[in-house]
């Protein structure tokens, strides 16, 4: 059963009482929250996520108003992981985004069966492109553009490289888009489902794009990495695809590793194997259509 299959009101009811158990890629999260924005986000953006029977949950999370007087004049939300609050509260409007970030934190801190990289991962013709990049590099825009043109979304934020298989495990979740990117994607892919932009004091406007149903339906299917590609958006820049040294790619992946430092030698070997099997590139782009076309060509050549 999917979230979309639950009768009206059931999502809110379960979130309020006892929790909603959802399977998100390889993980099961038990989510509790009395906050309507959380219900709304889950109903709209996680419509395709599988609702599972109560059993073992990997992460027990709760989004709730913190205790205290503030709740009356400046409503806030607290993210709890199994009853403990690892973060300071945020303004209530950011409740759903907080759920996304909080779950990312859960994965990065506990899922050490994977090398967890701060990167987007998309797949075409069986080959996965890993796009590690700092915020502002246009990684999410490129990722959204690619999945709007038929690439499968594995993840926008956390690339999971299985230590057991060496393959990338999918964790398809909404793609977060900021400021101008929201308009860029609306124009590029008018059919994409985007949440209403919410204003966030530190980052400007943020909207989430729903992952394609086909990506969510295949969220149990690992795929082999084929490229590590560092995107960089520069307004007006001509497209440039340059090869990158493997050793320096290695260092950059390490730098973007969330749990590399936990995995020790296994982490080193996992990154080395990944770099061995991948084409390593820098991609500078000023136009999304061009960038997507270049990626399509890479995927064609690989086939």
């Amino acid at each position, binding site marked *: 059963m999917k979230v979309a299959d639950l009768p009206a009101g059931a999502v809110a009811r379960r979130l309020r009482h006892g929790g909603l158990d959802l399977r998100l890629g390889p993980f099961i999260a038990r989510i509790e929250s009395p906050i309507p924005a959380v219900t709304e986000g889950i109903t709209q953006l996680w419509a395709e996520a599988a609702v599972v029977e109560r059993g073992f949950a990997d992460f027990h999370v709760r989004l709730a108003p913190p205790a205290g007087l503030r709740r009356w004049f400046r409503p806030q939300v607290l993210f709890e992981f199994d009853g403990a609050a690892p973060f300071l509260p945020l303004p209530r409007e950011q409740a759903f985004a907080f759920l996304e970030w909080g779950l990312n934190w859960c994965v990065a801190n506990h899922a050490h069966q994977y090398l967890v990289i701060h990167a987007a991962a998309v797949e075409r013709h069986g080959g996965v492109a890993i796009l590690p990049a700092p915020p502002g590099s246009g990684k999410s825009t490129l990722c959204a553009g690619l999945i709007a043109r038929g690439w499968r979304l594995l993840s926008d934020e956390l690339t999971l490289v299985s230590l057991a298989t060496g393959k990338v495990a999918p964790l398809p979740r909404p793609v977060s888009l900021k400021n101008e990117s929201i308009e860029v994607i609306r124009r590029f892919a008018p059919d994409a489902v985007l949440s209403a932009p919410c204003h966030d004091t530190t980052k400007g406007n943020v909207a989430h794009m729903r992952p394609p149903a086909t990506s969510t339906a295949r969220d149990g299917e690992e795929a082999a990495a084929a490229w590590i590609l560092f995107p960089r958006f520069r307004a007006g820049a001509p497209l440039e695809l340059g090869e990158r*040294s*493997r*050793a*320096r790619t*290695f*260092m950059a992946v*390490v730098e973007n590793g969330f749990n*590399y*430092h936990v995995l*020790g*030698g296994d982490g*080193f*070997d996992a990154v*080395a194997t990944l*770099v061995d099997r991948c084409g390593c590139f820098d991609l500078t782009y000023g136009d999304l259509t061009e960038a997507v076309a270049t990626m399509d060509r890479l995927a064609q050549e690989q086939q």
Partner: protein
Amino acid sequence: MASASVIHGWTVPPGVRWRAWEGEVVAFHPGSGDTHLLAPIAGALLEAVASGITSKEALLRHVAHHLDLPSDDALAAIVEEALATLVRRGLLSEDPL
């Protein structure tokens, strides 16, 4: 100091991982958790020690040959410094022969 007269050899301590691509070497130390990208001479030295070359003279000869450089005092000084750095980072250990 008396230690100056002691002849040392080098080995790669257990747990240290390293890889080379097109002559560029990356290395990991399990204690510090640090991951390094080595400069060419340091990289060549780590690879050489790992392949069983242990004395300073042999290492100098190896680096000179490997990088096609004259085996002179200038190179010796660079090699010496690179060895000291690798030891300080725990990527090599200094053992009395």
